[in-house]
């Protein structure tokens, strides 16, 4: 059980959307791996910035600009501590995980990937950790290699080791699979890659509010995540990169903010992290992200994980009672994501009918088409939990699922 000061009713009261009715029913939101709901403090953070101190940051010498700059940079420092980075210069704001990965593919790729070099990804990846590397490989005539999985949805570490060669330059895998919930042994993956001199990017989109992350302990070279999957706003994310690596990489985009001096003959670039932050950033969402980090820190990642694990175990146990159910991804280590399906019922039909019960789940290929192909299916039904979900909601979902299956069978 989560610690005794864990008060689920208090937590739920912080999220205004949980009082919302869908088609006359109480909203049951089990699509948290797609995006989490936002506490009132995040919504207020956004609204306060626009109503009280909206200004462009870093350049203006006036009260509003200084206040906004202070609030913006404060989030960078909070994130540095949250992720365990050595310096706040290593924290680059992006639009989200996808942009972080694209930044590395473009900039690290330009500097360090050459013809014949090899990049390793895995069968568990989201399209956003596949396509940027495919584009890079096409540009540079490099080679993409893929770590296979076993039937439980776990990476095969021996097969991974066998992929290494003296051409291996980068390994890019997710910490947690969005489709199956598998927690990958990233410390081992990182150490093995470093032993052959390769760098490692971890896609942290699905892990960062569920598992404690310390980039220095992991010794990871790049780590990307998104605020909106951590109770924060959409359109803002973080790329952590080791300082000496970031310093060796060329800028990603050109524009304001990222320059030191511009002339038509030659432009010199700003220092880290601004070198990678061209143009006016997403100030409002960054500032509002602070309230999400405060929320996670206040509840505690360990308490969040405990509550989610409780939901996972209960749901798994209840789902197992349903006739004909098949589970996809039975990894020993997993977060609170359950992917399932039925031979005789299409996942889309399930989602449409559950929606009429006010229940939001996700169905389809989850942007992991190569993984679906490996599993021999077109899609799954997926429930994914956040800290505000309850056992009562799970019981209501199970009841509704049984009714829906009765309608469809």
């Amino acid at each position, binding site marked *: 059980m989560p610690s005794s000061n864990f008060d689920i009713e208090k937590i739920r009261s912080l999220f205004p959307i949980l009082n919302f009715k869908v088609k006359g029913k109480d909203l049951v939101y089990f699509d948290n791996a797609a995006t989490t709901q936002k506490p009132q403090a995040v919504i207020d953070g956004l609204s306060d910035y626009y109503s009280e101190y909206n200004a462009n940051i870093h350049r203006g010498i006036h009260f509003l600009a200084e206040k906004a700059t202070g609030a913006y940079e404060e989030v960078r420092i909070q994130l540095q501590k949250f992720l365990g980075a050595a310096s706040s210069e290593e924290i680059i704001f992006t639009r989200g995980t996808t942009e972080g990965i694209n930044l590395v593919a473009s900039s690290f790729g330009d500097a360090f990937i050459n013809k014949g070099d090899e990049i390793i990804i895995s069968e568990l990846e989201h399209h956003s950790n596949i396509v940027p590397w495919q584009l890079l490989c096409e540009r540079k005539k490099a080679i993409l290699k893929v770590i296979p999985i076993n039937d439980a949805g776990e990476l095969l570490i021996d097969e991974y080791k066998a992929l290494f060669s003296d051409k291996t330059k980068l390994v890019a895998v997710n910490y947690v699979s969005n489709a199956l919930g598998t927690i990958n042994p990233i410390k081992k993956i990182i150490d093995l890659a470093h032993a052959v001199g390769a760098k490692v990017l971890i896609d942290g989109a699905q892990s960062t509010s569920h598992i404690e992350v310390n980039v220095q302990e992991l010794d990871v070279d790049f780590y990307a995540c998104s605020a909106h999957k951590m109770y924060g706003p959409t359109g803002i994310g973080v790329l952590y990169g080791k300082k000496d690596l970031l310093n060796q990489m060329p800028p990603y985009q050109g524009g304001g903010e990222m320059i030191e001096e511009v002339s038509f003959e030659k432009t010199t670039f700003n220092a880290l992290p601004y070198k990678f932050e061209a143009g006016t950033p997403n100030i409002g969402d960054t500032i509002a992200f602070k309230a999400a980090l405060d929320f996670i820190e206040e509840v505690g990642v360990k308490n969040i994980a405990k509550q989610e694990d409780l939901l996972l175990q209960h749901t798994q146990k209840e789902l197992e009672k349903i006739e004909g159910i098949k589970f996809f991804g039975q990894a020993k280590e997993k977060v609170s994501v359950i992917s399932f399906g039925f031979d005789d019922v299409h996942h*889309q039909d399930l989602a449409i009918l559950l929606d009429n019960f006010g229940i939001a789940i996700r169905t389809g290929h989850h942007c992991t088409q190569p993984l679906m192909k490996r599993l021999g299916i077109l899609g799954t039904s997926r429930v994914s939990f956040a800290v505000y979900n309850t056992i009562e909601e799970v019981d209501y979902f199970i009841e509704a699922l049984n009714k829906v299956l009765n309608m469809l069978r």
Partner: protein
Amino acid sequence: MTIKEIQDKVVEEFELFTDWTDKYAYIIELGKKLSVLDEDYKTEQNIIKGCQSRVWLQPELKGNQLIFTADSDAVIVKGIVYLLIRVLSNHSPQDILNTELNFIERIGLTQHLSPTRSNGLLAMVKQMKFYALAYKSKLESEVK
């Protein structure tokens, strides 16, 4: 019956349902009733690409009437496909093109046709109109 009359009849039938479970139970029943498309017709050419469910559509001209047969791997989509065929199939290409298709909206299933739902249904309606246009041109060129 004209296409308009069939649409009105479908709407009338759906007015009987007072709660969503009855409405969907009926659509599911229709979906199960839809004659299954022969596997030979479930080709790449006939597939309407959607995000979640697959829909296959096969057109055929008999005399001057356009006949549609279709199938889907999801039963609710299949039920709506059944209704689309009931409304649009067995009419001349010109009549199909002239039709303002509104019954789905009137029976409260618009969400299944919204472009963001990406279930292939909206694409299917477009494809049916496209076939009507193609066969209309074909018929006209034969007359000349």
